């Protein structure tokens, strides 16, 4: 299947990317605004979460209800997310409604009313969301893990911190929108059924007048600690483990991706086999690669009843360490096929493609073709992976547990 990437840059620097897909009626789009959790000023953790709600509470000629009804009428499947670097807002929809949807999103991004009376419910929802995390230890443990693994402020909670949210004011948040919604540093990605010339013309009209703000990069601080336990009288101990890995931009990126797949790609991968199949320690066990532009790691989740928590942690750490001892040719092949198949299957979804091309551009300044990714995966070998693992061995682990019992950490 022929694959191409459309690209156009507005005078103010906003990057427009597109990937046309044959045989689909849908289109997905995503705006990546440089207003992620790490980009918020100190003491305003959670502001991005409030903003992602607040900007839709009235914009352009429409009040809150009118804008909500207009979005709703287009049958959008909305997908908003807050990452470390970006606040991403977007949707998947039938392609005939793309033009109307972009008009509404431009209003929310450039002409949101940001009224005081709408600020309070937006902030309250963010506070409630933080409180609700206490009831979902599986999610909370991974947020707490990222917070401690990445140097401050990269791993900040994308949901927010109660103390900061309670002190957050409307004017302060408005100022964040003014200074952080830098259209000139934003990426817009579209995939599926669309006409690129028409999209560019419309985007030029909607965003071409916005001036570039040149938001400065955030200074990076220290890491927060090695082991944290958060008591919770639940049924399981929820264990999060994360260790350093080379980032997306590193020459060893594909080696570490394949290595992670050997560890936890499919059900024959090592973690699933050793932790669940051979020992019956967990139901949910898995690790995945996670990269920001500045740093990356492999993060692992395991949930288990208190009596098995210590053994689970020890088996997990031992499996991380054992990777550098050697990898079989067969398991390498399985890891590669798994990654390649997943890549092709994800490419059938317009939503996945829109986010993938946007994220590629942010990380690399260009979009990788599927063929390039396949080729680079194929080029990895047992030797190249072991070299990478020995160059950057898994020495240190950041660990967080939530549950009725602590574990012992070396």
């Amino acid at each position, binding site marked *: 299947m022929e694959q191409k990437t459309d690209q156009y840059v507005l005078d103010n620097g906003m990057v427009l990317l597109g990937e046309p897909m044959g045989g689909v009626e849908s289109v997905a789009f995503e705006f990546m605004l440089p207003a992620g959790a790490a980009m918020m000023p100190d003491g305003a953790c959670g502001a991005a979460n409030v903003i992602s709600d607040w900007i839709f509470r009235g914009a352009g000629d429409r009040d809150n209800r009118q804008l909500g009804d207009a979005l709703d009428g287009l049958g959008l499947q909305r997908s908003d997310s807050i990452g470390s670097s970006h606040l991403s807002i977007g949707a998947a929809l039938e392609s005939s409604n793309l033009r109307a949807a972009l008009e509404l999103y431009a209003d929310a991004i450039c002409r949101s009313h940001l009224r005081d009376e709408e600020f309070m419910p937006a902030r309250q929802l963010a506070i409630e969301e933080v409180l*609700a995390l*206490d009831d979902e230890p599986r999610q909370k443990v991974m947020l707490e893990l990222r917070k401690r693994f990445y140097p401050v402020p990269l791993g900040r909670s994308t949901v927010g911190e109660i103390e900061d949210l309670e002190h957050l004011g409307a004017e302060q948040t408005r100022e964040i929108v003014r200074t952080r919604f830098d259209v000139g540093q934003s990426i817009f990605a579209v995939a599926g059924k669309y006409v690129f010339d028409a999209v560019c013309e419309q985007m030029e009209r909607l965003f071409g007048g916005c001036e570039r703000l040149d938001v400065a990069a955030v200074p990076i601080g220290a890491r927060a600690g090695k082991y944290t336990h958060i008591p919770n009288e639940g049924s399981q101990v929820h264990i999060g483990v994360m260790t350093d890995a080379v980032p997306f931009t590193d020459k060893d990126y594909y080696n570490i991706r394949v290595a992670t797949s050997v560890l936890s790609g499919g059900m*024959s991968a090592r973690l699933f086999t050793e932790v669940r*199949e051979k020992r019956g320690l967990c139901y949910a066990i898995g690790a995945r690669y996670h990269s920001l532009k500045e740093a990356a790691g492999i993060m692992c989740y395991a949930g288990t009843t208190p009596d098995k928590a210590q053994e689970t942690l020890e088996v997990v750490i031992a499996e991380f360490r054992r990777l550098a001892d050697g990898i079989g040719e067969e398991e390498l092949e399985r890891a590669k096929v798994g990654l390649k*198949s997943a890549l*092709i299957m994800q490419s059938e979804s317009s939503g996945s493609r829109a986010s993938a091309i946007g994220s590629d551009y942010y990380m690399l300044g260009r979009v990788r073709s599927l063929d390039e990714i396949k080729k680079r995966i194929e080029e990895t070998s047992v030797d190249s992976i072991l070299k990478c693992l020995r160059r950057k061995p898994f020495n240190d682990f950041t660990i967080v547990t939530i549950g009725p019992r602590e574990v012992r950490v070396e």
Partner: protein
Amino acid sequence: MRFERKKLSNGLVLIGEVNPSARSAAVGFFVRTGSRDEAPEINGVSHFLEHMLFKGTDSLSALEVNEAFDRRGAQFNAFTSEENTVYYASVLPEYLEDITGLWAELMRPALRDDDFEMEKKVIKEEIAMYEDTPTFDVVDRCRTLHYGTHPCGNSVLGSAASIDGMTAGQMRQYFARRYVPNNIIVACSGNFDWDRFCATVERRCEGWQPQPVDRLLTDFEGTRATARLGRPNLNREHICLVHAGVSAQDPRRFAASLLSLIVGDDFGSRFYWDLVDKAIAEAASMHFGPLDGTGIFYSYLRCSSASASRVMEIVNGIFHALLRDGISEEELTKARNKVLSALVIKNELPMGRLVDLGFNWMYLGQYRSVEEDVAATKAVTVEEVNSLIRALDLSRFTQYSLGPVSPG
């Protein structure tokens, strides 16, 4: 898009929707069995058995099974509900026959004693995990409360006690009764060769022996009871409401699906504007759950315990207003657009299409194209939704809450 079907002499049905432009294919074995088909002493056996199928056959160990899937880059898994156990995989076209053959082989598992005992531990971990997931737990508990003694109230996972007490022998008997060819369909969607797919399935499955299978098919309006459980580790109030709905065979299911979006879609619904937009509840949604011969709507609400009574006042107000005034044309149009766009997006993926293809055959014994479902959704009128609201009496429901030990 081309639809194909075939029935083997032992009753096994094969169906397929061929889409040569897809980049992948998805295959599923749909077994008509779930927790509603279990006796109390073996509660949880359907789901446990689903796990055991991955443990291999007389000639394949568990590790060999996992390796066989992974070697072909399959994205594979299974799920068990009250009434279905579905095994599925999506793969690149060149691996479809291998994976179909593998699933077919696994449908005749070894069910070894030592695997059974090891997997018991995993199942009990899964039960513990869901106890720590109140969003799931409260819905499960409310469904059980709603259905009372009706078998659709049986827990899918079972309890630690029912799993502890179960023997491998009981599981083998259950398997022999339920995994018969006339109780299974094999479905495939996406880019694949129908004839070769059929040949693969036939070679593996034609020796399976049919036998009569039954299921208790009665509808039930629900107990409409109310219960609450306090837990020391919870700080939010998690509320589930279950209403009587319509069945998966009922022609009103399209209206029911639209109604659930009008009342409780994540965005733009009545729940959204009256509860979430105003930050009175942090989450509020309603879903339609059609089942074989019965059906429910279930709603999930999350708020502070102090707000729980206010939330329920508003929710009751919404249901009474719907009964009194019905829905508007504008609401229906918006809900319709949402359903139509969701249908388009979901069906662009072979895996998304497989689920509808399989379930339409399971419940209706018929093939329905995406276009037919689109037309049926477009044809629903305001009056049809309103008469459904009156028929089901939305003001009466079963309610279960999970929250802190001392509420408010």
